[in-house]
């Protein structure tokens, strides 16, 4: 089965560090940064990029819509028949 590989881009200026994306991520990709943005919030970032599947759960939960999601399907070396 083709495994999806994803990546997110967080708009660190508008992120308010509410932690909702961290709790929504099924693969524990996101964490809050030690640094703060201009408003003093610990913004979210991809702490574990390899685990991201591009499921968009974080982005649809984000109250400030500051997450953009990208995804590619990884084709395995042996093609499988569905």
């Amino acid at each position: 089965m083709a495994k999806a590989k994803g990546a997110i881009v967080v708009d660190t200026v508008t992120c308010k560090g509410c932690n909702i994306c961290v709790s929504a991520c099924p693969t524990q990709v996101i964490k809050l940064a030690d640094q703060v943005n201009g408003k003093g919030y610990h913004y979210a970032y991809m702490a574990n990029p390899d685990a991201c599947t591009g499921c968009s759960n974080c982005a649809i939960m984000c109250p400030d819509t500051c997450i953009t999601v990208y995804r590619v399907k990884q084709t395995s070396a042996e093609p499988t028949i569905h």
Partner: protein
Amino acid sequence: MADTYTIISPENLVYKKTDLLLDNVMHYCPGCSHGTVHKLIAEVIDEMGIQESTIGIAPVGCSVLAYNYIDIDWQEAAHGRAPALATAVKRLMPDKIVFSYQGDGDLAAIGTAETIHACNRGENIVMVFINNGIYGMTGGQMAPTTLPGMPASTCPTGRDVKRDGNPLKITELLAQLPGTCFVTRHSVHTPGNVRKTKKALRKAFENQLANKGTSLVEVVSTCSSGWKMTPVQSNKWMEENMLPYYPLGDIKDE
């Protein structure tokens, strides 16, 4: 494994902020459910291609500045009077899509009369009802929807039913009225619930296009500042305490 930086390119895009959401940074507290619901409404309007013909009625409450965030036409209503204003707008311009966006203090307290009569007349509008069980903007006072035993700034020891009365399940009340065609309750505390809420909003707007009557979508939501919790704790508290009293699902669907 593809490199993270090579994945980030326009052809791999699966989710981005809809163009209907303006670039203004929302004034809501971190983790506020209003932001999520604003986004869902913007996405639904965008997907249905009704941006040019939609008029929103903004309430009084935390979401009083909703017109700053979604790129459609808006009208600001006096406190609680959004259904009355929506009625006027829809009757004067029947070809427009009209929705009101209200909190529980607006829809279930000061605007109860307008709400009930708009639903009873079966006005062909959509009402979005955000229920967080508290007056968020003014400092977390007790609202009609505050749960028994739930602390608020005007009842720090919790709501006493003998003294303060019972919480008002206005959505169930409105489902009794013959004018309403679609009454449903959802939440936005998990990704699955967010998707369900979006579907319900879409259905409500489609009902209006089909001239079916009033559609009411209640969204049980959180107020982390008013409840004095973190956003994640509020979501958990809501699931454990609010949802048993305000069960999710369709109450009426005709």
